[in-house]
């Protein structure tokens, strides 16, 4: 159990750092979506299924959609 959680946390931290340093904004958005998804799994392991459900649907689906639409309107690559 603790191994699974630690592996998840390490992946989540890596995704968070990647979201900060990526120059391609679409990749950064997908990385931040991954952070939300793993956060939802961790909330479920911490016995908070209500929060996990909200995090999965809002953080992973809707916020990503809003970011992707914004990138489509502007530029994809950061200078």
């Amino acid at each position, binding site marked *: 159990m603790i191994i699974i959680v630690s592996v998840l946390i390490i992946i989540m931290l890596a995704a968070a750092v990647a979201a900060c340093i990526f120059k391609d904004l679409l990749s950064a958005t997908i990385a931040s979506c991954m952070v939300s998804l793993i956060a939802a799994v961790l909330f479920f392991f911490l016995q908070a299924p*209500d929060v996990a*459900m909200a995090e999965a649907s*809002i953080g992973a*689906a*809707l916020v990503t*959609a*809003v970011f992707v*639409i914004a990138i*489509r*309107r502007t530029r994809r690559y950061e200078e």
Partner: protein
Amino acid sequence: MKKGVSIILLLILLWGVVAALSEMPFGKAKLEVAGHYTDYGKEDTGAANIVTSVVLGYRGFDTLGEVTVLFLACIGLAVVLSTLKKQGCGARQTPSLILNTGFRFLFPLILLFGTYVFMHGHLSPGGGFQGGAVIASGFVLMYLSVPKIKRLNHFVSTLFESVGGLIFLVIGLIGLKLGSQYFLNNFLPNGEFNTLLSAGIIPVIYIAIGFKVGSELSKIIDVLLEESE
């Protein structure tokens, strides 16, 4: 000079934080209400899900505030975006076969799951906000896969939004009139514990919130996409 002032300000801030934290007893429960919620939530509100009994039973007024914030955000977004000029973007890529087939298979199931989540908010994890967000993510999938975007009917989504909010307010006011003198008083019978028709007004309000949040969030995505066409 500037640095000296900022260091003094930082020290004052630090002193304030330390003074505030040193007042709190370490390792003891700071609030007695939390214990009351877990001990008596079942009898007081009749909801099997303790989170729901707090969100809509004890703290229903705060939930009304949250719903209002979401409503204002949706209106504000629509107003701000309607003032912008429509710009042309690149051509849309046609969705692949996998996306189309997956959409046809998953869309009804996602809607069904969202409805289940907000109807059983007082029994199982979830509630109006979560169910509404699940429904809105189903609509995001629809916008991704349908090649020529079918628009949401804005009249219908606005109708669901307004009626959902009004049901919440009216039920709260009925409780204020019928029971003791507080807003969102539970005036319906609690019913048999852990059945669908239990917990008084909670399922009614959660169904209203589910429709409201679902139509609001899908409308936000719809408005954003409309502007980016």
